[in-house]
């Protein structure tokens, strides 16, 4: 039987490296914030022009605004993002009109967000994220012991944070849809974790084998291993279909989520129960007996 529990220190190290790596990437590379969080104009266009031709064409936009052109993988669709710069709706309107009137460019989608509103959206998303995390923590705390809640929330934050690092590394646009992706990862992560917690709790409450915490941890992981692999596998299978078939502007979400599933599987197999153990759960169990 694989001794998962004995890996815990190595897993902590791996996770620490991941976290440090993420902090460094975010610090130096930053997040590729979409207009949802920054304000500005966003187009999805279909055109035969090349990237450099488009770049030249968009030279009329003044230099103070950042213009970002990205070709969506494997298609003639481009996404064009123009920063709002100093808030100037008239100019934004002009840019929009000029692009709309170009016969070589077919506009699939255009979107404008006022910078003041994007600030509100950031606040809003943080509220949404924080409140749902809090609810998860409270629920796990009520159903299990605080060690479980602490470890579950840690794993969840860990997975979400590292996924943000992944997005920064590959320059994936961070927007409202990505907040939904991050929440999906959080949901998946806590799901995986709770299944393990349930197992560990039922094993430790069993009179015969409650003494050896390490054996119980290994046993819960082993008994759930097949389920964990099967579920991750089927989820990734479904997501791969989405990656290849989703509309061009939505392919990034399943990619981020696949990464989330992988990191979530890692943290539930190697991190969470180790943390529960290190939070002195063993001692709690013993104290409860005597």
């Amino acid at each position, binding site marked *: 039987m694989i001794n998962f529990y004995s890996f815990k220190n190595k897993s902590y190290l791996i996770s620490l490296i991941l976290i440090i790596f993420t902090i460094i990437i975010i610090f130096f590379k930053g997040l590729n914030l979409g207009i949802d969080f920054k304000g500005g104009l966003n187009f999805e266009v279909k055109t035969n022009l090349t990237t450099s031709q488009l770049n030249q064409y968009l030279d009329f936009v003044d230099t103070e605004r950042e213009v970002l052109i990205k070709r969506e993988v494997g298609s003639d669709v481009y996404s064009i993002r123009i920063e709002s710069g100093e808030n100037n709706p008239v100019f934004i309107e002009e840019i929009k009109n000029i692009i709309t009137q170009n016969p070589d460019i077919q506009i699939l989608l255009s979107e404008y967000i006022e910078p003041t509103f994007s600030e509100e959206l950031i606040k809003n998303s943080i509220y949404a994220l924080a409140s749902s995390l809090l609810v998860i923590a409270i629920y796990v705390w009520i159903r299990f012991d605080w060690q479980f809640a602490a470890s579950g929330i840690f794993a969840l934050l860990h997975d979400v944070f590292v996924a943000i690092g992944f997005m920064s590394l590959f320059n994936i646009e961070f927007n409202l849809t990505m907040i939904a992706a991050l929440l*999906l990862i959080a949901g998946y992560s806590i799901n995986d974790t709770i299944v393990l917690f349930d197992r560990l709790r039922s094993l430790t409450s069993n009179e015969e084998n409650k003494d050896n915490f390490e054996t119980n941890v290994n046993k819960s992981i082993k008994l759930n291993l097949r389920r964990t692999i099967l579920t991750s596998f089927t989820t990734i299978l479904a997501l791969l279909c989405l990656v290849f078939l989703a509309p061009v502007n939505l392919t990034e979400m399943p990619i981020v989520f696949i990464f989330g599933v992988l990191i979530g599987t890692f943290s539930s197999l190697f991190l969470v129960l180790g943390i529960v153990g290190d939070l002195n759960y063993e001692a709690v169990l013993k104290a409860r007996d005597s």
Partner: protein
Amino acid sequence: MLILKQWRLWISLLLLIGSYLFIKPNFESQTSDNKINFGLDIQGGYSYLLELNEEEYLNNLLVKTSQYIENTYSIFSNINNGQIVISKNQNLDALSNIVIQNLGLEVQEKSEKENSYIFSKQYFNKSLSDMTLNAVEIVRSRVDFLGNKELSIQKVGLNKILLEIPGDLDNNVKEVISKTAKLTLHLEKSNIVGSKTFINEETGEQVRVQEIPNITGDFIQDASLQYNQNEPVVAFSFNKEGSDLFAKMTSENVGSRFAIVLDGSLITAPVIRESITGGSGQISGGFTNETANNLAIILKSGSLPTKIKIIQEKQIGPTLGQEGVEKGVIASIIALFAITLFMIFYYKISGLFTVITIICCLSLLFAMMSLLNTTLTLPGVIGIVLTIGMCVDANVLIFERIRENFKQNIEDPKNHGFNSAYVTILDSNLTTLFAAVFLFAFGFGPIRGFSISLIIGIISSLIVTYIILKLFLNITSIKFLGLQND
């Protein structure tokens, strides 16, 4: 027959028939309140998020309240920095605590010379929210007059309005919704005190008039596009009160000019030739058919309580949405197919049960979505895919438990396995469900679309697993489940 004694059988049938009945309206042509709507990202269209000016509204409310106090109690006050300041060198007896409270005010500061009051947060938010509801109706009637049938318009937050219109872009919409449309009539005035000069932005014409309007657009009952010597003009008529005021103003001032001002800029300044008693008039001044019609619509619908600002604007061409749906449907079918193959390969008969369970789960989900008149968006589709994942996960958990119990020779492995696995499923799904509910409450746009389908999906997954999957397990001998060999 043993199977007929299963209560789950009857409930399953009920669920399926119910799902069928609720899904059916979606395929019928007539409109119904129990249909799934498609979001703009799917069907194409355009949306505007409008924000009413909170500061301006606060100011209006302060002025109104201050005037009310002056008129009712003869107590004079100043407005300063968002506060109503009342000097103590007058008799303040009438201003009891109850009166203050009823006006929605609370004490900010009391000094020897003066008291200052602000609106309580609760009162102001309520009042702001009511004002927005009122503005929603005004915007709705404006867009309605343009002839848009399927628009959706709703209040968002305290002072925002979300307007969504499927189909092609109509440039008039933006023109019509973003105007405050405060129409005022002012008589010409030559001395500077209490006067104000308005300028026509196009012609540069200027006229100095009395600052406080003689008549406002609030009295307008109807307005329409008409032609005067082939030139488009806006004809309007006042209600009774407005007619009287208009008649009085025109009869007393024959020979002088008055200004017609819209949102602070001069439209035209005609000379009063005779008294106008019919209560109707015309505005002319270089209109095109379109601009005259837009102005008529705006006047008819009434003015918005404050300035309005478009803070988010979106246009989604129909091709992107169609492509998205086609690809999304194909992706879901392929994903479902891949999962089906895999589950049957791995779990044999039980795998087939899973597939049927998933299909039932999807029907229940769509039935509930239709019943609740939900709007399905692309993030919503992703939420549904996640639901399928959670349903598969629940099945796998149950099968693995049964298999494990079988190996350990535990008595009644099916029921025992199902029950212990279902506790785990409840724990993990409820956690996600609670999180999704909070997401829905606080989130905006795509987050809401995603969380609503996740919420409905989790509930249907929990129901079908408990009823339909368990039914299959109950009526199948463990030998045939395909879970014993390993």
